[in-house]
């Protein structure tokens, strides 16, 4: 089940499950300056977010993760992108872009619930990341002051991209 799907490109994806959670923990430990709680790990293996919590493989090696949660407010469902990162040596070869595009496509095709937007936080010192998301249609919609408690700078941009749902195939 968690076997990466064959892909014409060398990038492939597999859902996060309790079985490969160790790989996610390992990646988070080296990728982020942040410690994630057990609640985080419990949430990302939930079947509802299966499509949006993915391991990213390059040549069948797990090199990154991408984890979202679904937030419903006023009947509108948005995806909050909690983590998206690729191991340092594997960066700058389009793996992140392909992953983000995969996420956007999956979100657009998702029916229950329909996803209206994807948003995320980026630390204000990380302008590379900001540019990356802007290339993929994200826009700065606000600033979250003191988002980070211990690491500096404390503030984070809020970036968001609206999702146009693709029409469901006829007969459904």
């Amino acid at each position, binding site marked *: 089940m968690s076997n990466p799907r064959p892909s014409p490109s060398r990038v492939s994806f597999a859902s996060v499950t309790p*079985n490969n959670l160790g790989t996610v923990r*390992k990646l988070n430990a080296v990728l982020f300056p942040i410690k994630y709680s057990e609640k985080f790990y419990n949430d990302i293996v939930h079947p509802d977010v299966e499509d949006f919590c993915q391991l990213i493989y390059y040549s069948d090696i797990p090199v990154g993760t991408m984890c979202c949660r679904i937030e419903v407010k006023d009947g509108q469902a948005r995806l909050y992108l909690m983590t998206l990162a690729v191991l340092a*040596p594997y960066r700058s070869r389009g793996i992140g872009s392909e992953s983000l595009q995969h996420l956007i496509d999956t979100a657009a095709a998702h029916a229950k619930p329909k996803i209206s937007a994807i948003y995320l936080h980026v630390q204000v010192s990380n302008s590379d990341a900001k540019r990356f998301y802007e290339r993929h249609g994200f826009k700065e919609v606000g600033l979250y002051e003191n988002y980070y408690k211990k690491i500096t700078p404390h503030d984070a941009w809020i970036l968001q991209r609206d999702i146009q749902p693709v029409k469901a195939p006829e007969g459904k």
Partner: protein
Amino acid sequence: MPPAGIPPARALPSKESALFKEVLHYYEDRQLKKGLKAADTILKKFPNHGETLCMKGLILTHMGRREEGLELVKQGVRLDLTSHICWHVFGLIQKGQKNYEEALKSYTQALRFDKDNMNILRDAAHLQTQLRHYDALVETRHTLLRLRPQLRQNWIALAVAYTLSGNLIEAKHVLEQFERIVKNVPDYDVEMSEVLLYHVRILEDLGEHAEALALLDSSAKSRTIIDRVAIMEFRARLLSKLKSPEAQQAWQGLIEQNPDCYGYYNGILANRGIDLDAITDETRGEALQVLHDFSQQFSRAAAPLRIALTVAVGDEFKALIESYLRSRLEKGIPSVFTDLKALYRDAAKRETIESIAHALLDSLAHASDAPCPRSIDPATYVWTLYFLAQHHSHLGRHKRALELLDTALAHTPTLPELYLFRGRVLKRVGDPYGAARWVDQARLLDLQDRFLNTRCGKYRLRAGLIDEAVEVFGLFTKKDAASPAQDLEDMQSLLYLTEEADAQLRLGNYAMALKKYVGIAKIFDDFEDDQFDFHGYSVRKFTINIYLNMLKWEDTLRSHPAYVHAAIAASRILVRVHDDPTVTTKPASQSHLSDAEKKAKKKAKKAEKKVQEDSKKGASANSTNEDKGLDAGPPKDDDPDGTKLLQAPEPLERAAKLLKPLSSLTKDNLEAWFAIYDVAVRRKKYLQALQALNHAHRLDPDSPELHIRVVDFKRRWSSLSDKPAESVVDVVSSCLPKLIPDEVSLELFNSQYLQRHSSRGAAILAAAKVSRALDAPREEVEATVFNTLNADVELDLETAVAIDAFLSEIQSPREDEFRTACQQKFELSSVFAPREEVPALRRSALQQGIVDGNESKKEEMIS
């Protein structure tokens, strides 16, 4: 049934006689309840009627009341010793108990009183095959054919019997006769096709190659042999043997069918007079040209490329290996080192591979904390590091290997292979605890990978963590099994049984170790029993060729490494028990009983209770018609910790039985000869013991273990109180001096050996053990052993561990000194750590979680 001469005790009045026929009838139809009722009716009037008693016993056995049934059958046989029915029934029961020898005896008795009974003859034939009584088998098959010549399988069965007894000419005649008279064979008949292939095979084995080819070709043309691949393979082989010019084309055709079959390349090259196993400078060029042409023709085939690596030398090898290695590392094939390892026997090739791999690594090197340059593939870099780590560790450069692995892990911390191999390197340098910890890390990366799980269990066993090993094995075993261990044993997991037995032995739990070793031996008994059904099935279904191969394989079954290891290790335990019976009563085994074992014991008891209740229920409500068959079910385990097994009488006889197959199957195994010697000499089988020493001497005259045993033999022999038979004395006095000269004293012999091998650690240990046996003072023995620490002595880890065990055995006060010295000498090891630290080391192997220290340093926490 014989019409006349019915003994009066067997004769029944007509009413009961009819009833008895009904019993037989009911039994045939498996209407057990009715059969039992009818038998009881007869027995009411004639309680001593042997045949009825036997039939009742047989029916009860089928109903699951085995002991009661067996008693009745025995009683019945005693009451009517000349009834074929009684003997047949007895034979059936014994066959069900897998007691083939006795069953065959009963069948032979039955045939004395009813010599043409087809059923009995057929069963007897199966038993004769199982027991390899091939001459008797030919007789039986002849009788069957005479009785029923119209049955095709009877002809084939006779040919098979002749083949097995080594009489191929008669087998050929039978098949020729059969083919002449057989009629109405449907088109594309698989059975006939198999028979004809079998016929071709016999002709080939007889060396009648032209006849074999003629039969093959005509049968292929008439489409009576329909196995296309077999036709091509037989044809190519026969043409080669006939030195026909067509052979080349035939092999070519096979390679076109399957360009990855090594055998075809052997064939086509052998046909050109090139022996792949003995390439010379004359044949090398031609072989490489042929292989090169094929690799051009079949660009996706690996076989011609890989074979070329074995054949090529020098610059040619260099050119070939470079592209071979590079393409595989670029594809990320994890097993490429395993694939190439066989080439390492050649030092020049080894060095070429090393320099090429390092050159490749240099061209790929990049930092692990920044994006890798676009011209480089980061995955190829990781696989190259992995390959080189295996390379260096294989050559004993473990530190180098660890450095490479650490570089790879910093670059890509998510590849399980890296963790697994880091564990393996640590195991090799004598750190079983660190090894277990690293392999567990690999497992945590992907919990549903059973390979990683099994590795983790194995490494935990190596670290002496038995409960914890069983715990991880349990993640993949059946949930309704009595225990993970039981399930693995039922699934015949040789790996698990071997590793657990070895682990128990290291912990000094002889009972449990012996139980698991014997469990391995039992699995091989099962393998042997499993062939039984095929003696009937294969002849009936005409799957003869594969059946003959299987019988040959069964004959060498116990040369399997797992059996050899188990038999030797078990025999050592049993010898120990013989030498010091107190080891069987030491409380060690009880107090060693781990939590998991205790749990398993409880569970087993519960299960047993349930079985008993069930059988009680079955007995009280025996109204069921359910047929439980004749095969005795698995016996219940009334010895969960192996104590009874360890305490059972005649340890040496049991050891001898386990070792018996080894003397013919593993002639090149020194360890096996030593085990055979150890048992034989204690059983006072001096000739067998001496023969074992001679075999070992032929394999390695300088072997340290042999030295110990030669002295041991001489000591035992010269202090014998009652002399053995004169013939034995003659042989020993003529053979022994070849192993140890008569004129020198044992002490001198020992010191000469020590002098000759003063730079070999294992030899020094052997000499020390011998002087200990010759009652040298302990200080002197210790001094000898400590010489192994000298700089000019070759001392490997295994020997160092053995020396430590020896010092412990002789209660040397210098053991700690030795361990400390070893800890320095084997700097990466943990096996020589002070004993009080071992529990902490074991625990360290179980470090929970996958992320290490740096996680706790992080301040920011997101929930």
